[in-house]
């Protein structure tokens, strides 16, 4: 396989331009864009090593300077996550993350903290997601010192103000009321449960009871347990001097003990999805939302580049992917249709294909999606599809480094998830080496129509009745498993009524 991102012809074109500058104007317009020739895109990605520093206490810091605008950004990754929530206090991690920012500090009231940050036009945030915590600061260069004061006061000495905490709890509970309002939200929640079961942290909902059980002491203890330099990785970017920033961080972390209490690992879901047709009724909408899926693989899978190309051709590649071409361009059955093949960091991701279509045509569009999944497993992809897909990944590689912030963030994330940065060096070659036979092989091995769970949310009466124009399509005939109706849960307890 030749190197896809080198264009030897371009050198000739360049040479011509250099020798005869007037030549270009005289050029005619090629009849077809495939006749255009291009200069070589000479892009060498920055390496993690050249931006990686370690403080004396072992904390890793990435710094990427960019002095074009007088702005500085500091991001912090913290080893924690909502997977550490106690079962009877689901919501603790998320509330702790949010209240670190909202609740002031031990020496500054919540209102004063907010007011100072707002007056400086500083963007200060803190949050805890599923498998990581984070905090960020964005400010003008001239305010960096005072903003770092605020930022580190928040990280080290959060006040967890009682009034703000009560407000956040009541807002969280009121927000639960909206859980069954939007079909998009229902689809996401139920598809997650179909893939992960209902016992995994990623699908355990907070309820009125779990939120009410959380106390300020719980948040203080959670913060104490996980927020210390041993769990920190910094990513700094923008208008800063690297040496200055390193000594600044050194000074501000000074005396903050590095605890060597290891954080528990992220639990893998102990669940195998059940194939079948799953139906959720939402009578007052005229469009059904459909997701089909089964488990994917992990990020360290050696087949991941082949899977990336396979999924791109099937449904990941936007307008030119097969799913959108068939469902949207050919048939006009949906505005969007796509697929993703999940490669998880801690456990296998999920393969998911989905679309939205008017109630009557849900069955027909589902049949097309199933057909396309079958087709990519049985026929080799065309050479042109393969070439386009490879070209896309190779040529958009530089987008990962489009700003100092995205570069520093990428390196920090890889550090956090323990990914060897050498993959960046070989990424384009690995993509360019994928063949049509590889795509067929991984499609056969990793896609399995017999295992698909098909979830449909919408007006079931109209959806199951199908299209009077094309009565041959029936949703119930398409699924290889059982037909299961999922009722809407009581939004505050998340108890599902027994039908």
């Amino acid at each position, binding site marked *: 396989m030749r190197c896809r991102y080198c264009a030897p012809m371009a050198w000739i074109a360049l040479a011509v331009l250099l020798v005869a500058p007037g030549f270009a104007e005289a050029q005619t317009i090629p*009849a077809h864009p495939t006749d255009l020739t291009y200069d070589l*895109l000479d892009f060498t990605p920055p390496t993690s090593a050249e931006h990686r520093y370690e403080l004396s206490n072992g904390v890793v810091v990435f710094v990427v300077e960019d002095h074009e605008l007088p702005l500085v950004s500091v991001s912090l990754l913290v080893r924690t996550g909502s997977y550490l929530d106690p079962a009877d206090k689901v919501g603790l991690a998320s509330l702790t993350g949010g209240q670190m920012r909202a609740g002031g500090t031990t020496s500054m009231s919540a209102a004063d903290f907010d007011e100072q940050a707002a007056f400086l036009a500083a963007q200060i945030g803190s949050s805890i997601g599923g498998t990581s915590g984070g905090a960020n600061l964005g400010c003008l260069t001239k305010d960096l010192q005072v903003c770092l004061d605020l930022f580190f006061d928040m990280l080290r000495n959060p006040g967890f103000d009682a009034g703000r905490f009560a407000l956040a709890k*009541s807002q969280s509970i009121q927000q639960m009321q909206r859980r069954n309002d939007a079909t998009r939200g229902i689809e996401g929640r139920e598809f997650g449960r179909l893939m992960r079961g209902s016992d995994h942290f990623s699908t355990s909902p907070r309820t009125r009871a779990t939120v009410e059980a959380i106390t300020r002491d719980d948040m203080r203890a959670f913060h104490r347990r996980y927020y210390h330099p041993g769990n920190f990785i910094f990513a700094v970017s923008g208008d800063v001097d690297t040496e200055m920033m390193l000594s600044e961080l050194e000074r501000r972390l000074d005396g903050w003990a590095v605890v060597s209490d290891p954080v528990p690992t992220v639990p893998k879901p102990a669940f195998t999805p059940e194939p079948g047709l799953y139906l959720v009724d939402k009578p007052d909408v005229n*469009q059904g939302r459909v997701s089909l899926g089964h488990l994917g693989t992990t990020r360290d899978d050696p087949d991941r580049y082949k899977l990336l190309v396979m999924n791109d051709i099937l449904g990941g590649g936007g307008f030119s992917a097969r799913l959108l071409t068939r469902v949207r361009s050919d048939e006009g059955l949906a505005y969007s249709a796509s697929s993703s093949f999940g490669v998880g960091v801690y456990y296998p991701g999920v393969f998911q294909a989905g679309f939205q279509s008017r109630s009557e045509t849900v069955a027909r569009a589902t049949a097309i999606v199933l057909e396309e999944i079958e087709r990519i497993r049985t026929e080799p992809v065309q050479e042109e599809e393969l070439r386009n897909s490879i070209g896309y990944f190779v040529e958009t590689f530089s987008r990962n480094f489009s700003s100092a912030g995205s570069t520093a963030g990428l390196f920090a994330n890889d550090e956090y998830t323990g990914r060897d940065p050498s993959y960046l060096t070989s990424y384009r070659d690995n993509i360019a080496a994928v063949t049509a036979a590889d795509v067929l092989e991984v499609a056969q091995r990793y896609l399995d129509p017999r295992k698909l769970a098909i979830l449909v949310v919408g007006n079931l009466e109209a959806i199951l009745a199908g299209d009077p124009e094309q009565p041959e399509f029936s949703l119930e005939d398409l699924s290889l498993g059982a037909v299961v109706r999922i009722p809407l849960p009581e939004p505050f307890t998340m108890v599902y009524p027994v039908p």
Partner: protein
Amino acid sequence: MERRFGSLGCAVLLLATTVAAQEVSVEEVMLDNGMTVLLLPRPGDPNVAAGWVAKVGSVYERPGITGVAHLFEHMMFKGTSTIGTRNIEQDLQLIAQLDQVKANIRAEETDLLEAHRLGQIDDPNDPARRSIRHRELLEEFDVLLAEQEELIIKEDFSRIYSGQGASAMNAGTSYDYTIYFVNVPANKLELWFWLESDRLLNPVFREFYSERDVVHEERRMRTDSTPTGKFQEQFDALFWQSSPYSWPVVGWPSDLEGITREEALSFFELYYAPNNLTAALVGDFDPSEARMLAERYFGRLQASDRPPPQPRTREMPQLGEKRMTAYADTNPQVEIRYHSVPDGHVDEPPLVVLGQILNGRTGRLYRSLVEEQEVATSASGGQSGMKFEGMFSLAGVAKDGRTPEEVEQALYSEIERLKTQLIEPRELQKVKNQNAASNFRGLRSNFGLMNQLLVREAWRGWATINTDPALYDAVTAEDVMRVANTYFNPENRAVAIYYRQESDEAPDARLVGLDDAEQQQVRQMMNMMSQMSADQLAQFAAQVEQMVAQVPPENQDMAEVLIEIVRERQVAAGSAR
């Protein structure tokens, strides 16, 4: 990665609180045919954010063809005489035949639509109702489509782009403009010129009818099948009386159904001439090469000798408050809108600053409504200036146990404060500091900057990116008070109240025993009460008590509920006897 400096030439003055605004030095090239090209080289990231704007959107439409600007945007991805086809002559022939058959089908549909209008049939699209001729035509249409399928290279346009590493390719239609954008690797700039000038020069609107179905699905997804989408659309139509901002960008369904390919084509000829187009490039390119390519490629477009027609109909001044009550899958909430001013009006900067005083975690609305009064869980407000009209809207979601009407009153109190008291100097300075910082933040991404230049170009010209900041920095507390008094008047507003549809739509359990008409009446009176002062409430209570003695027996239960509520309100207002 040490990035080289771009050409933004920002002059940072370390004043006590404010930093000076940047100067964005764009090179503006005017082609002979009237097309404008904006060039902003920014080396570093080896990519170019590339886009162009047509100064046309849904307000340039008229009833009957609403949605055509957006539908047209979709058609621009369907190819040209070179892109998307294996045989252009046969393709064009088939397109003409398809149009002819479609016209005949439309004639058949007219009868069904009329029967539906007269209530003779329930569903004009019921296949069983179609005549034999109608069915034959549909079959003929399908046969032609199948023939055309053989010639079409599906999604050729996007496939060529993505195969060359172009990303984020898409377009967007708004009320005032339509933008087409993409990110191309730095070495693929000529491909952008080739494809974009080709689709302006040689467009072929193939797959017109199936694309119309796609737009229908887009409408279902964004408007019909979201909890509040269809109500917001109705509220827009209620708020705007004569202005074309009253119809949705995506168009009314009946118009989408009827728009013809010819109508889309004539729209193109009027509004996609080079004198109505501006392109912008931001990123890693050589400006002299870009100038040369612009002339070579876009220079091919035929100049138009007539300026594109502009919307003529202005909004009528509103004479009385408008209200809408909706029951939706959402938490109870309120939206209040005032007619204000379009983008660039001299009163816009103070209105925008006024909105900023209200917004955010330290803004007045959050502090007062969410934290102090605990009447709302969230509240916001802000000025939206479009090209020809503008509005200022306020919104809040009621906290559990409070009503949208109470949120509405609390919002009015904040407006009243702005009308009668000058804002604090520190509040004003805070907003100015935030504007200074966000001006810089808006320049970080090449894509965002390209988009900003094009939107500004569609409104008042790209150069406002350099001239607007000073206007906002000059706003005074007196300006803010003046605009509050100019625009925030009851007869100039529309109010939408949302209740949750379901059993808990009326928070009052006392209404349960009443019939629908009675419930509606009680709710209306509750609305009225929520706007009364303590004295007015006392007067009203006396009237209700008198009334109770006179109501017929079948309405007695309603009267009792009403009196109970009035007394409760009086207690709440601190005026109970």
